[in-house]
């Protein structure tokens, strides 16, 4: 019985495997053996960020817009997989808030207006899956992690206070900078359009998240080359 079973299994294996199309096929190489594995690119684009704004008792969510520039380096470590590191910085995304200030001797609070200028600098690493082999257009999707540092430059101006003699005391604007750092996951995708054998134009979108949801999105376009 055991011998019969062994013979039968061997027969099945021998019969199935040599005839298996996958075994018999030889893939055609569409990538030259000495193809470049590194690329560098520079890009510019738009960065949008969510922000919770408080105006006295009122709190709302706003969307900040800023310009952004970035530089990246990529390494192709498998036929379709690429590791990318990039550094990006943005221009100031501006928004305004106000807060009430109680002044001794005055029955009602006066208001301080705050002008915020938020500049974000981020370093990120990602793994990208690049579709197709050695073509002129390569779509890709990517996932990674970014360390983002936000510098919020706050210029506060207090409402002029009228003294008992009727003269206005104009306070001097004060400036402070608050810096926060966050580590967030990112998801994105885009296209590389080759304009020469090793030079390309790229465009991509990228989203970063935290526990509350979408934190930022960016849309960048740039140029780069393989080496």
């Amino acid at each position, binding site marked *: *019985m055991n011998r019969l079973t062994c013979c039968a299994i061997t027969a099945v294996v021998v019969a199935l495997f040599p005839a298996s199309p996958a075994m018999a096929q030889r893939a055609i190489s569409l990538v030259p053996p000495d193809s470049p594995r590194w690329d560098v690119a520079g890009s510019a684009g*738009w960065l949008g960020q969510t922000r919770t704004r408080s105006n006295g008792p009122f709190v709302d969510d706003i969307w900040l817009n800023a310009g952004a520039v970035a530089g990246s380096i990529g390494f192709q470590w498998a036929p379709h997989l690429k590791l990318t590191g990039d550094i990006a910085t943005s221009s100031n995304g501006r928004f305004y808030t106000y807060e009430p200030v109680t002044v001794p001797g005055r029955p009602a609070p006066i208001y301080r207006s705050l002008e915020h200028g938020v500049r974000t600098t981020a370093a990120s690493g990602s793994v990208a899956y690049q579709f197709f082999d*050695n073509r002129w257009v390569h779509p890709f999707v990517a996932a990674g992690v970014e360390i983002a540092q936000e510098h919020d430059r706050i210029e506060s101006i207090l409402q002029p206070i009228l003294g008992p003699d009727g003269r206005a005391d104009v306070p001097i604007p004060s400036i402070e900078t608050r810096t926060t750092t966050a580590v967030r996951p990112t998801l994105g995708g885009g296209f590389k*359009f*080759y304009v020469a054998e090793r030079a390309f134009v790229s465009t991509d979108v990228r989203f970063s998240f935290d526990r509350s949801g979408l934190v930022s999105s960016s849309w960048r*376009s740039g140029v780069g080359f393989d080496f």
Partner: protein
Amino acid sequence: MRVFRRVLVLVVVCALIVPATGVAQTSNDANVWRAFVEKVPIGTELNVRLRNGQRFRATIVQPSADAVTVLPKTRLPVPVQSVAYEEIVSLERRQHGGISGGKAAAIGVASGAGGFFGAMLILLALVGD
């Protein structure tokens, strides 16, 4: 016990017959593709699809009895390679003239990206810190 033996025999018979049918089909296809390639002039551009799922564009360089030598059309040049007729699922002659849908889409996206890139540069120049 008898039932088990019968099932076993059936499995062995199926295992032997089914691949044989596949081989016969492959061989038949190979003859078709050999005949096709022999009738197409050298230098013709083809869309090639292989049994392993690969698809690519290639130019016919030299047909032979068992295989056709092709030059894949890629961005970075690759050497000429031989494709066995048995590995071919389909060969389709590429029609030139006009612009393909993919190319038109690529040009559209590239123009959009270029426009966006230009607009962003202007915007960055205008944005004051």
